[in-house]
């Protein structure tokens, strides 16, 4: 009994304090997407209201910060910058209010990035997310029976099952004799645009911009203990085509009310 009790206490301790909860980083990401979108759509009054509603303060021109004072949470700080083509973008840093704590190693920053983007992906062995434009084509291929079956020597529908408009199942080979079913879901996110130096996570979301990019400088060539900044940037592609211009402006309240990033597939116009 005593041992069991001690074990339970230990378990509770590690579950409560052993792992940091970074779920709030997803909220920061949502807010930053809204801020960048409002700047791109030139809606300064809406931007001003949004910054107030979400407790951003400014102690330096072009820079805004948000801290939950006294909390162990990281704060977020961003500056509004302009590139040579007069396009505005955000340079973002995650930091502690207590500046003495702000020494992040490559390892720390990788963990922060993972947690910042974690909810945009939700990819696992059981679930895979695919940007809508690719998803749509693949699903059409399944419906038209033009996609090759993954498992050899099986009939077509042994390998694919359409679930609904935004998901289907695919049978994949795990090893020689074993297969498993993976659910493929439509997503607004893709990280296909990255290159040698930068990883780029693109969000095809609401509003007039074709997409928003979250850009990280790649750290894989550095030692994991090297101190690096937490900096990343948020950039939008400017709306140019008539299609973009005809899109509805970014609906901030509706977007913020959504629980998950893919609750609405924004580029699905049908």
């Amino acid at each position, binding site marked *: *009994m*005593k041992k069991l*009790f001690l074990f339970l206490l230990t378990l509770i301790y590690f579950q409560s304090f052993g792992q940091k909860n970074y779920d709030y980083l997803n909220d920061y990401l949502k807010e930053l997407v809204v801020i960048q979108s409002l*700047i791109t*759509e*030139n*809606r*300064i*009054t809406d*931007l*001003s209201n949004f*910054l107030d509603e979400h*407790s951003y*303060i*400014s*102690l*330096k*021109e*072009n*820079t*805004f910060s948000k801290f*939950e*004072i*006294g*909390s162990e949470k990281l704060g977020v700080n961003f500056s*509004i910058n302009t590139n040579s083509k*007069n396009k*505005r973008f955000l340079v973002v840093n995650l930091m502690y*209010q207590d500046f003495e704590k702000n020494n992040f190693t490559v390892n720390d920053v990788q963990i922060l990035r993972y947690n910042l983007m974690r909810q945009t992906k939700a990819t696992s062995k059981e679930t895979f997310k695919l940007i809508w434009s690719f998803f749509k084509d693949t699903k059409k291929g399944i419906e038209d029976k033009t996609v090759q079956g993954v498992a050899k020597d099986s009939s077509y529908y042994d390998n694919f099952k359409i679930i609904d408009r935004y998901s289907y199942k695919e049978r994949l080979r795990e090893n020689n004799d074993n297969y498993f079913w993976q659910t493929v879901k439509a997503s607004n996110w893709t990280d296909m645009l990255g290159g040698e130096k930068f990883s780029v996570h693109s969000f095809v979301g609401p509003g*007039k911009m074709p997409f928003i990019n979250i850009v990280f400088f790649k750290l894989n060539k550095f030692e994991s203990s090297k101190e690096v900044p937490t900096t990343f940037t948020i950039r939008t592609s400017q*709306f140019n085509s008539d299609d*973009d*211009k005809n899109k*509805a*402006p970014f609906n901030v309240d509706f977007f913020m009310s959504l629980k998950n990033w893919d609750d609405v597939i924004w580029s699905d116009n049908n």
Partner: protein
Amino acid sequence: MKLFLLYVLCTPFFIFSQSRDFKKLSKSTQIQILTDTYKSVGVSEIVSLAIENGYELYKNDENQVFSDFNGSVGAFKSLTLFKNIKGGFFPPNSVGLIIKNLFFNPPFEKGIVFSSITQISLIEYENVSSKQIDNFQKRLISFLDEDIRLKGLEISKTNVYDSPFKHANFSGGPKYSYTNKIKYTAISGVNKIPSEFTFKVSKRKEFLTNKDGSGDNYHYLIYETNLAMFEGGLSVNNLFEKSRGIKKKTLDNLRFNIGGENIKDINIYDLKEMINLFLKDCKLNNVKFPDVKEITSTFEPLDDGVLAIALGMFEDNKIIIKVNPKEWSKASDVKRWYILYHELGHDVLNLKHGEGGKMMFNYSDKEYTWDDFFIDKEYMFNSLN
């Protein structure tokens, strides 16, 4: 084992309940003034309450009640209250003095107290023993500790030994060798946001010799409640005021900058340049308009009171704007832009009065602010999307 479980279960109740002594003391206005645990944050209300409870206002060398300071975050004022100790919460027959400094943002009528330093000195003599004074100090510190615990979450508790309580008002007074510094967070009564506070407390004893050669032991207790949000003393109120100013500047820069050009840099006697900026603004705001092939913009005398007129409405390839030089020369820059956008709303966007919001209203205001201009223009453009 059962005892252990009982202890674990009961601990939270013990931790979060108020002691009987705290409940009793917290109801007394004397204690509220002494420990800065009053509900108000307004300096004038706090001073009134203190005077009602027997405190007096101290006048400085220049016979002034208020002393002015210039800190890194702007000007602030202080005033000093004092009171001779007589019984009550103190040990019976106590002899001593309370000195209280309040620091606040001017003006006095609307000022907010952001910091307060209190020093209590008690003399040890045949009717009041050292132990009685010590017990009193412990009781008061325990009260202050409990108050912090009930209203906030403790972040850290440290002892600082580098010259605590440096403030000018106490520079000639006793020197304290350490400070017990408690950092905690609580919801601010002013802004209803979680804010960081610092509380400092210290005590010391000194034997002071009288003129006749005799002497007494003086027991000092000092504490500082600091409502500053960040180290360096920027009060929550000051911080928000400062933030609002900087934010406005940043957002104005975003607004004034239209496609890389600052609206204030445009020559307001070059009508074509102004019209081109309007067209650029339409593009940036995703407003579709016909391909303009001809711009005619001239200064010509018009009826008194008429600043400008548009003559190219529904002539999609042309912009024809006439501006009254007499009225134009008298108008402010913002009014010139407002009226020009109104006329171009007719001419380029084919908007009638009643469409596109206030910018397209029939009558112009006597004067406009830049906020009016940007908000009304944003509304007009958004109405077309």
